[in-house]
């Protein structure tokens, strides 16, 4: 593996156990444990079966976390995913109601997400001068607009064949199917981002697009792929939302994009690109979900819960920069 310089990849500093515990992920695990203890102490109803029963809506959201992690590492952003969730759930619901078999409707739901992602990817890679924030702001409005038009004046559609979609609500004991899928996704995406060439390319692009380009990384192809991927994941999210609400309406998925971005940032992924990993983001998402469920069960004012999550988010972004400052001060 030794290059011309004589250095090897193995020569990159290895992190010890101590470092791992001190890292953001270690801190997040501790916060996660503390929140569960806290939930258990405060609310007698905070137990596995109740948390799992309340979780499907949040689990659906976590699917998008992995794709969003990729996009943010690339240094891009996608704020249209909430609308993709709405559109794919709407199309899935309407096609099933039109008499198509459920299997086909599920496929169409996923394809809708995929196509929306491809549209985002196409615009973002073909017109690289446009910031992705603006591209996806545009498609956010367009996708939700299409969903609203399809839903008609009522603004909501309910699934007639809700037996068919029941398979997506299947549970093993108290644990919903979606949870297992999430774990599988987490393992795959974490490995892809941290252990493969593709993952390395993502970090390279996020650090410097130009440098990556000169190093022979197919920047635009990879960006297109990532936008398509998150579109597809939003389709999966839409599917599970459809399965848990038996329908779609014009507010389905509203605000999901920001919640997912918040989970990523809380988990240490920088919106400027090239930094962070999915392990942190995944643990952070579980922290936020458990916190919301626990605070909900003690009947805390829902607006206050949002305030707390917002404050946590800012603190989590500030802590690493303070630590950096502290370390540089000490070196002097």
């Amino acid at each position, binding site marked *: 593996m030794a290059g011309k310089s004589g250095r090897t990849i193995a020569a990159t500093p290895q992190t010890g156990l101590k470092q791992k515990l001190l890292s953001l992920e270690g801190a997040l695990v501790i916060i996660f444990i503390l929140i569960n203890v806290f939930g258990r102490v405060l609310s007698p109803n905070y*137990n596995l079966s109740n948390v799992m*029963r309340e979780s499907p809506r949040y689990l659906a959201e976590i699917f998008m976390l992995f794709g969003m992690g990729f996009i943010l590492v690339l240094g891009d952003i996608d704020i249209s995913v909430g609308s993709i969730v709405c559109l794919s759930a709407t199309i899935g619901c309407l096609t099933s109601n039109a008499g198509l078999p459920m299997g086909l409707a599920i496929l169409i739901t996923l394809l809708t997400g995929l196509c929306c992602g491809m549209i985002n990817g196409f615009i973002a890679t073909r017109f690289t001068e446009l910031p992705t924030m603006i591209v996806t702001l545009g498609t956010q409005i367009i996708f939700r607009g299409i969903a609203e038009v399809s839903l008609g004046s*009522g*603004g909501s559609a309910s699934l007639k064949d809700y037996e068919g979609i029941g398979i997506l609500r299947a549970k093993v004991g108290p644990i919903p199917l979606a949870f297992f899928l999430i774990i599988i996704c987490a393992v795959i995406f974490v490995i892809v981002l941290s252990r493969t060439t593709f993952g390395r390319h993502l970090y390279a692009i996020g650090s410097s697009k130009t440098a990556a380009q000169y190093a022979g990384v197919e920047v635009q192809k990879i960006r297109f792929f990532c936008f398509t991927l998150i579109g597809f994941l939003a389709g999966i999210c839409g599917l599970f939302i459809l399965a848990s609400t038996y329908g779609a309406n014009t507010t389905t998925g509203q605000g999901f994009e920001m919640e997912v971005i918040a989970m990523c940032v809380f988990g240490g992924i920088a919106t400027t690109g090239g930094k962070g990993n999915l392990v942190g983001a995944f643990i952070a998402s579980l922290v936020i979900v458990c916190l919301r*469920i626990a605070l909900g069960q003690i009947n805390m004012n829902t607006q206050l819960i949002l305030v707390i999550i917002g404050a946590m988010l800012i603190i989590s972004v500030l802590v690493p920069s303070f630590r950096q400052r502290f370390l540089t001060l000490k070196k002097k």
Partner: protein
Amino acid sequence: MKKKVISVLLCVAMATGILAGCAAVPTATAPAADAAPAEEAAADEAAPAAEGAGTFAIVTKSAGNPFMDRLGTGFEEVIKAAGGEVVRKDPESATADAQIAVIQSLISQGVDTIAISANDANALISVCNEARDAGIKVLTLDSDVDPSARALFCNQAGVEAVGQQLIDAVYDLTGGEGQYAILSATSQATNQNAWIDAMKAISEGDDKYSKIELVEVAYGDDEPQKSTDQTQALLQNYPDLKVICAPTTVGIAAAAKVLQDQKSSVKLTGLGLPSEMAEYIGDDDAHSCPYMFLWNPIDLGRLAGYASLALYNGEITGAVGDTFEAATLESSPYTVVDNGAGTEVILGPPFKFDPSNIDEWKEVY
């Protein structure tokens, strides 16, 4: 050296953290392992409590909505008087999605009844069924869900009665001919849509209304700013507009402010809260709203409170013909009727607020 001390200290802190975590893990997971028995135990506990107070929940449409606040006030008053415990939940946004999260949380808490003002008739069906399967009585007030998913709907007024009163007000204010527009809440708000449909049906079915023309139904989504924007758009797009009818308390307040600020000749009517609308109600040109209607939201909350208690005590099941007492309400006792789709109780006819009585009512709610 200093560095070492700090790192040792941090390590110790971490270790204690982890130990605490490990020690706590059994507590956190233990109930999970025997979740089912725990639930049974909870059910056993709930059974003897049946003679006692009980816990009654109310789920509003959104936070910071004065109408919803009053519903909560009335509900709370009745339940507390009966010795029950009240859980009031506002969803984090005015969407069905946010309401689902809130209702799920209430199911976890094992409350006895849930009264919901629904943001969407369809999206809440599955969560309401889940609540029912968990032994919770579900009823709706103000805005209904699909009748299959609840025991009873506490209706503020018959749909027909509201539609009739609103269209008559429009007829009166336009002078029998001219253009009018409707400023509604969200496009899927169950009750607003029902009233608007009733208005359309009545005006199409009777020649008396043939000369008044509905130009647009605008949606302000029950947000003050969006309602203001929509009102301004209506004024711009339809210079001949004579009347705006806003069957939503947020919409009517926003529209009233726009019309009065712009000294517009367009008149306003609809459904509004007296305390918010007092400064706009008057017969002269300086005021934008000659009169409007509403039921008493505190009374509606009370009605839902009595209905919750009756469902909980087993006095009623929500079937047609069931009756229950509502001590502090004038129209008591109430009888459950069929509204064509499901069962409901009707609070009473809408009340008219005009310059003669507004000063008295603005103090009340």
